[in-house]
């Protein structure tokens, strides 16, 4: 639709993309840099505050003038680690298992929608993304009733199944985009060398899409770890995940800001670190494979 004639440029996420030189002098450059940094710090401030507050005593956290200097303590973090351990284990299990399951299901499916596509590829793709768009709230009631009737409420396997279903569309779309990037010549060359399907997978497709699988896994991990709606409604105690643990802080009695901050920090830490390390993969995943 656009009338550009530009050819696709080289890899984009490197920081080296040279911007055209501004014709104005260095002062506007400095001003922009300052502005950028100001905005970056402002956006980051609530997180900074969260981490700092996690080190406070409750009385230091409830001051009308926010305290920046105080005697730090690890007691909140210790407290939280104690209490949140079983929740963290559940989150870990649900996230890992569902991500593995998703990759196992999505890679073959993506293969069948890209390299060796079925006839109704477009329809199938449409179906997958439509499941992503349908509101969860429309199915929570029957899910609750049915799962209750088979006695499987508060069960980690139910969560694993649901998280797999939740991430499957994204994974299929993403893996498809990665598989499509494998140059046709490479596949044909391997075929001509007499490679069967298994060999093709082991020696060509998986190595070439390994970063893609990693990116897919990253996105699935993020969404599964942070998932709240199903967790809060379908678990009670045995299989509750970290987001459910945080619910306990609503309307808590007494003073709890510092402990809450410590809990929020620890809860977010895994995904934040993963996202920091894998920023490039993040873009790919968030756009469901459309944007590199």
């Amino acid at each position, binding site marked *: 639709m656009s009338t550009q004639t530009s050819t696709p440029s080289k890899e984009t996420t490197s920081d080296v993309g040279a911007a055209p030189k501004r014709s104005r002098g260095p002062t506007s450059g400095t001003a922009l840099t300052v502005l950028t940094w100001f905005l970056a710090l402002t956006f980051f401030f609530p997180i900074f505050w969260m981490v700092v507050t996690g080190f406070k005593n409750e009385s230091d956290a409830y001051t009308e003038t926010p305290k920046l200097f105080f005697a730090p303590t690890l007691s909140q973090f210790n407290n939280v680690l104690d209490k949140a351990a079983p929740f963290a284990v559940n989150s870990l299990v649900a996230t890992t298992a569902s991500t593995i399951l998703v990759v196992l299901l999505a890679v073959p499916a993506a293969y069948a929608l890209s390299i060796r596509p079925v006839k109704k590829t477009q329809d199938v793709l449409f179906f997958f993304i439509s499941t992503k768009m349908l509101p*969860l709230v429309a199915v929570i009631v029957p899910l609750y009733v049915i799962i209750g009737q088979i006695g499987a409420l508060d069960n980690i396997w139910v969560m694993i199944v649901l998280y797999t279903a939740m991430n499957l569309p994204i994974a299929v779309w993403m893996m498809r985009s990665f598989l499509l990037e494998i140059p046709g010549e490479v596949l044909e060359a391997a075929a001509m060398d007499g490679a069967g399907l298994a060999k093709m997978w082991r020696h060509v497709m998986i190595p070439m899409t390994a970063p893609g699988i990693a990116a897919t896994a990253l996105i699935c991990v993020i969404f599964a770890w942070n998932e709240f709606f199903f967790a809060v409604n379908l678990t009670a105690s045995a299989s509750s995940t970290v987001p459910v643990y945080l619910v306990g802080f609503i309307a808590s009695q007494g003073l709890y800001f510092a402990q809450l901050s410590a809990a929020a920090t620890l809860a977010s830490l895994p995904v934040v670190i993963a996202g920091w390390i894998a920023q490039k993969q993040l873009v790919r995943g968030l756009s469901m494979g459309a944007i590199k």
Partner: protein
Amino acid sequence: MTATAEAPAARGSSAATQQQSGSDKKQSASREGWVRRAPLLPALIFAIIVTQVPFLFTLYYSLQSWNLVRPGSRSFVGFDNYIAVFGDRVFREAALNTILITGGCVLISLLIGLGLALLLDRPFPGRGLARTLLITPFLVMPVAGALLWKTTMFDPTFGIVNFVLGPFGGGDIDWLSTYPLAAIIIALVWQWTPFMMLLLLAGLQSQDRSSLEAAAVDGAGPFQMFVSITLPHMRRYIELSVLLGAIYIVNTFDHIYMMTSGGPGTASANLPFYIYQRAFLGFDIGEAAAMGVVVVVGTIIVATFALRVIFKSFTQETS
């Protein structure tokens, strides 16, 4: 970098099917079809069972009057629930809130995200670090973020926001009671701006530098270049960001549950939250199911239009 090319149709299998005759060809063609389908089936069947079957049940429940805590009250009532739903003022308010929250959040985070992407599209000291800082709000667990905004930021007495606004005379506002929607939108914008920024930044960085340089040489100012070269190029990315963002934000539940519980009253309830309330706090299964169906139908209508745009975006060949 543009989206992926169209699926190369017959890669790897053309050689195999070339040398066959007549009915053999039909047989092996259908077998070929199954060979191709096989890897797809596990994922497809899984998705159908877990997502479509429950929805059929929702349809079934929506035709019943069923209050969970009054046993024996379950009975078939046809479309009564739907009539009640459309007559419920709170349902209409929740629908309006959903539109306000989604529209407001998407628009604001898009604009701020675009601004940030433009700022990050140039080299400056500490660029990588600034970018890392800026994407963090999106990585923080949404439930945790919502809790933080509710307590350490928006608390009327001890929160940062009122502290910062104090010198400007606004230090007394009880955000969650007086401006619940605004508070929720602020928290959501904080979380989603990095999402927009990342996608738009990728779009900016995929611009063809040579045409920009050529324009600069021709004497075009930065604003002109932005309007006539950058924006058209960005159109696809903007569309994609808006649509993907809207898909997620329309289903916002975490923030409303954690920050306001839909309150005060039902002032900040959106459709997902209101349906949750009717089902799990009000125990009116029939009505909640009917609402669910109505929301799905609404989503399908909007989505059909939206999906066409996404499809163009995803499967467009690079021109």
